[in-house]
């Protein structure tokens, strides 16, 4: 499932963009060194293939509903992690631009959720050790199903985490996870089945194709566990830094999650520098300054979740402010429409 811009906070969006760009840079650097030129058009056309394949629907047995292919695992198995990651990233980019699936800020999240997990975690650490050089269709089927399920579970769980960290949705963690994980378990099983079907079919119909692709892809396509761990650690530190900077600027969502995780309220906050300046600016200008976190931050005590909910949540809201907001919005939107109609009218006149 695609993450959407409207549910994201800038902190989460930019952090995952940074992560995805870093992985993408690493992938293209590795490929550039070791790639065979013929793989470049193949990768691009396989991206279009994934796109086209996603448009064929099939009936999921026993349910009557229909599903389509995700494609990350097929690509990882055939192209190896680096090339597969780049193809997946370009598929998601085109989807974001043309079908507005998710959006451009959420693109970082989507590349992470649907690209990094299948290509850099599941394929090297689950599929590859399991299948190895084996050609047994049953083994490929089992490994594909487990891999697809694992990749989709990780992806779905990340959607839940990203949504909660952004704090735009009221969905509690447990309920959201309980909704997302089982749905994606079912999707993962079907995806794994289809993946194995395609791999086995191609292997039996034209075995030389898979071998020739394997021969032209970089030899160092194996991902070492150590490298992955180091990358994840570095990304975690960067993410922590970025998130905590934003946390002091935009107090929505993060406090909530920190409270949940540590059982305490916000971490002691130092009020100076750019964060404090921005915060001051925001407090001056925001429609609902700091909404319900204001009292907690001012008092400086560590309130538990239940206390926070019991406390009066909406300080300083009076009917006057909201009426002004509504009238203002109506006027602004009316003006926008009028400007639009005006430009249209002028254009028509010019043409005729």
């Amino acid at each position, binding site marked *: 499932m695609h993450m959407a811009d409207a549910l994201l906070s800038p902190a989460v969006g930019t952090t995952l963009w940074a992560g995805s760009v870093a992985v993408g840079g690493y992938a293209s650097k590795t490929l550039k060194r070791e790639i065979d030129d013929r793989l470049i058009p193949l990768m*691009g056309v396989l991206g279009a293939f994934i796109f086209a394949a996603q448009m064929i629907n099939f009936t999921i047995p026993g349910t009557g509903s229909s599903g389509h292919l995700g494609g990350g695992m097929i690509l990882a198995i055939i192209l190896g992690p680096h090339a597969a990651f780049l193809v997946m990233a370009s598929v998601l980019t085109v989807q974001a631009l043309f079908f*507005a699936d998710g959006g451009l*800020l959420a693109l970082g999240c989507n590349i992470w959720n649907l690209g990094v997990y299948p290509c850099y975690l599941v394929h090297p650490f689950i599929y590859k050790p399991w299948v190895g050089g084996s050609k047994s269709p049953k083994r490929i089927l089992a490994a594909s199903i487990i891999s697809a399920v694992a990749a989709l579970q990780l992806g779905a769980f990340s959607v839940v985490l990203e949504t909660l960290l952004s704090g735009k949705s009221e969905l509690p963690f447990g309920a959201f996870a309980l909704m997302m994980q089982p749905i994606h378990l079912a999707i993962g099983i079907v995806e794994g089945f289809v993946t194995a079907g395609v791999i086995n079919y191609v292997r039996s119909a034209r075995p030389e194709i898979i071998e020739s692709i394997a021969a032209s892809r970089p030899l160092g396509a194996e991902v070492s566990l150590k490298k992955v761990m180091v990358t994840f650690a570095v990304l975690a530190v960067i993410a922590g830094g970025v998130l905590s900077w934003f946390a002091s600027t935009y107090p929505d969502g993060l406090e909530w999650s920190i409270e949940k995780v540590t059982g305490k309220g916000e971490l002691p906050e130092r009020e100076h520098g750019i964060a404090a300046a921005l915060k001051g600016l925001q407090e001056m200008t925001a429609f609902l300054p700091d909404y319900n976190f204001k009292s907690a931050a001012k008092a400086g005590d560590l309130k538990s979740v239940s206390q926070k909910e019991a406390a009066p949540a909406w300080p300083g809201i009076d009917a006057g402010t909201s009426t002004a907001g509504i009238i203002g919005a109506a006027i602004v939107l009316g003006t926008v429409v009028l400007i639009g109609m005006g430009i249209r009218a002028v254009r028509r006149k010019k043409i005729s």
Partner: protein
Amino acid sequence: MTFDDKFFDIGRLDRLSFRETFVHRLDPRVKVIATMLFLLTVISFPKYEIAALAPFFLYPMLLVTVGEIPLRFIIKKIIVVSPFVIFVGIFNPILDTRIAAVIFGVSVSAGWISFLSILLKFALTISAALLLIATTSFSGVCHALRRIGFPALFVSQLHFLYRYLFVLMEETMRIIRARDMRSFGKRGTGPRVFARLIGILFLRTVDRAERIYYAMLSRGFAGDMPALKRSRIVWPDLAFLSVMMAGLWVFRFFPVTENIGRIAEGLLR
């Protein structure tokens, strides 16, 4: 969405991007940067913000009118992709029932406000992304990304993907039609047949990639795709970007909508 619709849509966006208007003539790099800034600004508003989002509709409206993009087409595309956001957002009014405001005698819960805020942000971000592609051709965006500093390999992926998307879609359309003609009701539409179909499509794709590669080799392909048309950033581009940044800054940090509302209220009294 049926297959033909999706196919038609992508072709239509592509055709729109070849118009000749002020927005279309702007440098792709400037438009990509402006769009990203716009998205970040819109997303940075807190959860319960509604009124301050209103002025931001000016940007898509200007692009639609100056760029001569059909408004109904964009709205239709926004509605098509809305289910996930609505699915996640609809829980806000259910779970967050604190009364936040009383408007003309009707009490509104905080959940409805945050839900409406999500919907507004959704409309703004999606329309900005769609309008970027409708006013800048896809290859324009690709070259912009290349010159901003994205890796050549990734950008050439995007080029290939886009170029062969239409070819493979037509191929797929033929496959789907063939399957539909041979399957009665739900028979023959299960995952087993599906895996075979995908397998065949894959084999054809690989063969096609091979032909493409030889064709490209004979035309001197060496790993990158240079653009013949070099766009240069000229003063209208800089003017556009600075107006954009100033506008975003003002609308982000000053309660424009609220002040207009107050003034209007004062006049009414």
